[in-house]
Structure formats: C-alpha cells, structure tokens
C-alpha cells in the first residue's frame, strides 16, 4: 500500500507493514542461505552426484544402485589429487 492512501493519524500501519515485509525478506534470505549451504555440503559429499546418477539412469536408491555409482564415480574420485 502506498503511503498516500494512509489516513492522517494512522502512521503505525505502514511502519508495521514495512517491518513485516522486512521480516519476510530476512526469513526468505535466511532460508535461502541455509538451502544453499546444504546444497554445497551435498555437492562436497557427493550426495548430489549420486542423485544425478539415479536421475540419469532412472533408478531409485538401493545398495545395488549405490554400488554401481561407486564403480563409476569411485574411479574418477581416486584419480582426483588432494591438495596439501
């Protein structure tokens, strides 16, 4: 609501709305940051790579699927140098 529509004497409403908007924006930003952080962890720990493997082969997670993923992914992982 624009400030021009607010009647004189009711200044508290736009301030409250502004605060509410800011709180919503902050909580959205916070939730987004947490999601991003978890995505980074999932990428670092190869959970995303496993999810992509399942999607690529259209299969669901099971010990055999994970064994196949490890066969494919493990060879690449073992060739990856670890930095000092």
């Amino acid at each position: 609501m624009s400030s021009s529509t607010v009647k004189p004497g009711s200044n508290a409403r736009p301030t409250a709305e502004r605060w509410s908007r800011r709180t919503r924006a902050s909580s959205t930003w916070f939730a987004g940051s947490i999601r991003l952080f978890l995505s980074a962890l999932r990428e670092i720990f190869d959970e995303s790579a496993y999810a992509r493997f399942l999607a690529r082969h259209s299969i669901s997670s099971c010990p055999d699927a994970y064994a196949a993923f490890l066969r494919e992914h493990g060879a690449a992982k073992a060739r990856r140098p670890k930095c000092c």
Partner: protein
Amino acid sequence: MTKSIRILVWLGVSILGALALGTIALHRGEQINAMWLVVAAVCAYSLGYRFYSKFVSAKVLALDAQRATPAERLEDGRDFVPTNKWVVFGHHFAAIAGPGPLVGPVLAAQFGYLPGTLWILAGAVFGGCVQDFVILLFSVRRDGRSLTEMAREEIGVVGGFVAYVAVISIIVILLGAGALIVVNALKSSPWGVFTIAMTIPIALLMGFYLRHLRPGKVLEVSFLGFVLVMLAIWGGQWVSQTPTVAPWFTLTAPALAIVIIIYGFAASALPVWLLLAPRDYLSTFVKLGTIGLLALGIIVLRPTLHMPPLTRFVDGSGPIFAGKIFPFAFITIACGAISGFHSLISSGTTPKLIRREPETRMVGYGAMMAESMVAIMATIACCVLQPGIYFAINSPAGVVGQLPETAVATISGWGFPVTAAGMHALAQAVGEQTLFNRTGGAPAFAVGMAHIFSSSLGGQAVMAIWYHFAIMFEALFILTVLDAGTRVGRFMVQDALGHIWKPLGRTSWYPSILATSALIVAAWGSFLWQGVKDPLGGINSLWPLFGICNQLLATVALCVATTIIVKMGKARYSPVTLVPLLWLVAVTFTASWHKIFDPNPRIGFLAHARQLASSATPSPEISRLILNDRLDAAVAGVLVCMVALILLESISVWVSVVSGRMQARVREAPFVPTRFAAEERV
C-alpha cells in the same frame, strides 16, 4: 549505495588495512592483539578482491558472461554439471584446503610473526589467488583441460613433460613430508595413536553403512563418523591412563613409520569405497567444522601474540630449519600464499562445474583468499604460545639436546625463557608424556589451538581433549592426503608404464596394482624413513624440498598462464602473472642453490654429507645418511634444471609471439552463446 558512499567505504577499508598492517609491521617491544592480523587480512583480501581481481577479470581475461562454459556445452550429469557458484566455491575450497596452510606458517613462525604474515597476504593477493583464478578460467575456455595438457598445447613438449614430472615429484615428497609430520605428532603418544587407529575401523564401518545400510547418505554417515571419532578421542584418554593398555599404543618413530607405510600400501590397493572414500568424507567433515571453530575461537578470544614480530633467527640460524628469510620463508609457506598444487584442482573438477565465466573470479580468486585466511589463523594459533614453549616443541633434539634440562637451557639462552617444570606441566595438561622435540609443526599448532579453544570453550579442564582433537584433525587430514596421493601417484605411474607394456597400464589388473603401489610407497617411504633416522630431524630437509617442488609446479602454472596471456595479444598485461613467476623463479633457484651448495651443514646437503664423512667413524648408518644427503642434493638439482627448462621454452614462445615470428594462436574452444543469459532476462 551511491558512488560517493562506496568510495568512502573503500577509503575506510584502505585506511583500516593500512593502520592494521602498520601496527603489525612497526610495533616493536610490545605484544599486539591477534585481531590486528585478522583485520589486516580481511582488509587486504577485500581490497584485492574488489580492485585487483576485478582489474584482472576485466582487462586481462575479459570474462565473457555471454560465452557458454563446458559445464553447459558438454553437460552430461556426471563430470560436466552447471552448478550454483556458491556450491562450486564450497567444493573448490574443500578440495584446496589441506594441512599445508596449517603446518607451513607454524614452521616459518621461527622468524617471528611478521615475515610469514606479510608473505601470506602479499603472496595470496598478487600470486596465489591470481594463479588459481587464471588457470581456472583458461581451463574453462579449454573444455576443462588439465594443467599438463595445457602446458603441452600452449608451451610445448618440454612443458608438458616437466609438468608431469613435477606432479609426481611433488606428490612423492609431499607424502614423505606429511607422513613424517604424523610420525612426529604421534610418537610416544598412546592417546593420539589410539584415536587415529580408531579412524580406520570407523571409516570401514562408514563404508559398509554407505554401501549396504543407507546408500548415498554421506552427510548422515559423516556426522555419525564424527561422533564416533569424538568418542575415540575420549576413549584415548582412558587408554593413555591405563598402564596395561597404554604400552600397546606407545610406538617409537621407526615403528610408526612402518605402520604408516603399510597403511599407505593397503589404502592404495584396497577398493575405493572401503577405506579411501569414507575417510575422505570424514576428513572433509572434520576439516570444515574445525576451520570454522578455530575462526570463531580467535574472534571470541582475541588472543595476544607472544611471539615477537622478528626473532634473532632471521640471520639464518633457526633451530626449526636453518636458512635466512629469503628464500626459506617463501619456500616454507607455500599453500597459504601460493601453491602449485592448487592449479591441479583449478584445472581438474572445478572448471567442469562453472556455470558462467564471471563466476571463475569468485571461485578461483575467492577460495584461495579463504585458504590464505586459514594460514593466518595457523600463524595466530602458534604465535599465541610463549616463544620458549614454541621453540621447545618445534626444535629437534639434534639442535637443542635430548634432555629437558639441556633443551630449556639452550632455548632460554636464545632469550626465550622456558622451564622444564613448565613444559612438564603443559605436557600433563594436554595428556602427553613430553612436548620436547615434537617437530613437524603439528604438535605446536595443536597446543596453540587447544590454548585458544580451552580459553573460550570449556576452560583448562578440557585442554587435553582439545589438544588431541587438534592432533587427530591434522593427522586425519594428512593421512587422507597420504592415501589419496598414493593412489593418484599409482595411477600416474600406471599411465606411464602402460606406454611400455599395456597390461601395466590396466588399473584393475592386480599384479600391476600391487607393483605400482609398492613403487610409489617405496618412493615416499624412503623419504619418511630418512626423516625418521636423520639426527637433525628430517623435516629440516624434507619441508624445503616439498616447498621447492610445490613452487616448481606453481612456476609451471604461471608459465602456462603468461604464455596464454601473451598469445591472447595482451602482452602488456603479462606482468600480472610474470611478476609472481619471476619471484618464484628467484625463490626456487636461490633455495635450491643453498640446499645443494651452502657451506653450512645445517643448510647444504653436500656440506652435511662432507661433515658426516669427515667427523664420524665409518658405519653403515653414516654411509646411508651420506647417501640420503647426496640423493636430496640430486633431487633439488633436477628440480631446478626443470624450472630452467620450462622457463626457457616459455620465454622462447613469448619472444617469438611478441616479435611476430610466431603466429599467436590460443587453443580455446570456439565461442558458443550461453542459454543462461537469455533465461536470466526472462
């Protein structure tokens, strides 16, 4: 934010950074607070990122937001995957952050906190971050090619060969030096040995859990593994205090070396899923958590640095390693300032995940800044200790003597007072029998970290737990590098041998697996054994050799980068990579010269061999030490010759291009417009 406010903010950051650097550099006679280092680092990195990296990306590299990256063009859902820039940042940082930025600054602190701090800041902003950034971008523009492939294509055959040999050399020497650090941290420490030994069954359990119970739930099992490791630390205290059990886990340095060599061989030959992958996950989990915790501890506690800015050892007479600030401080601190190893990561998995070209700036330049900050935290962790304690822990018995009384008399004589009773009390507080002669950097870092943690979390009562947590953290780090490095080295040897006889190149053929694993383990195992047996403390010779190797690889990376910049027709901007390259060449050449020919037996390998030959009665042990010295001298000589070769071949390319004798032609993938730009507009 309006332009004038932005200018004011950056002016404020510049003034604050200058003030902090001035305080660090000019304060004499009074101790300073560690927060000055943190403020100087944050300001230097902020300015470097905002202005220098922007200049490099706009003028030198001309990052193109419209150009599709290989992650988009070659997307296969496996190696090439367009990924959120923050996710790639985390992935890249987790790959480049190892034990190097923790150990190097601790060893170099023998010169005082000032030389190391200035090198970490300047080296990272103008050298390391630039190297990681440009190599990442050049790899992105070449379909994610590796450094060795780019060296072969852009410089020539010699460049490619040197890069290959440098990678093998650095891996072998890194593994030897890393294993020696673990040995020095764990010798005569039943608590540490028990905790680290327990990480092997924990990793096996994690491997079984991941494969059979909850497939793919890596985060969950890593958390479970972390809890079990914490229980192992707690259990280690019981082990160390139980007279019947403690002797089983109290091992001498040679015994530990043998155990680690056997472990390295097993880790290289066993299936990846069983040991290597779960340990890697566990190590990464502990690493990220501990770095965050250490940063928090430093900010909360804001400790005072007891180490002076410069010590008397700037003259080259240092007890931890001999040699003057130039070149040895710049060889000792590699990973926190500039590390050639990072160029392997920047041209490995990371370029295959980059979604848009401009994101290489944040990932390449930004992640190295974070790594450099870890090195600053390591400097703080060891400089909060009283200098006498720092030198008592880090000085080898060959320099300060075997007995506590002799050691404290020598160290106090240097002007750094320390008492045998004080050292005994500290050893008791951290649950060790002794802290004298615990060389390698890891124990000193662990004591400093335990000091910071126990002052902010839990008090003195939990100092022993924090100390062993820090030891476990570093040993786990290094052992992860050890098992992964042995396996990578094995693959590289198999690739090379496959050209001679095809079956040797088959990575699933067990005779080849066993033979090449044995070859690599024997290579780093001999360096380790030499370090364990060397009376002057093998880290003396191994760490500078490792530094020379690492800087050699950085030299190769910067030669590749400079050559590409010249071929792009931007020779006027080549100083961006040429200046750090020339600095590294000066450092590597001077360090190699000293390590081979210096007349001081504590520095020069050949002088040490001559001293042994003339002063001692001949024995098989002495003959072996002399042979080791000559071998080290030969390794250093070969490395410096390789630097010269690659530099000469690069200079020849630059001169040919600039003089117009050679047509400048870069081997970039053809331009394809990105679809992400259109998606953003929608």
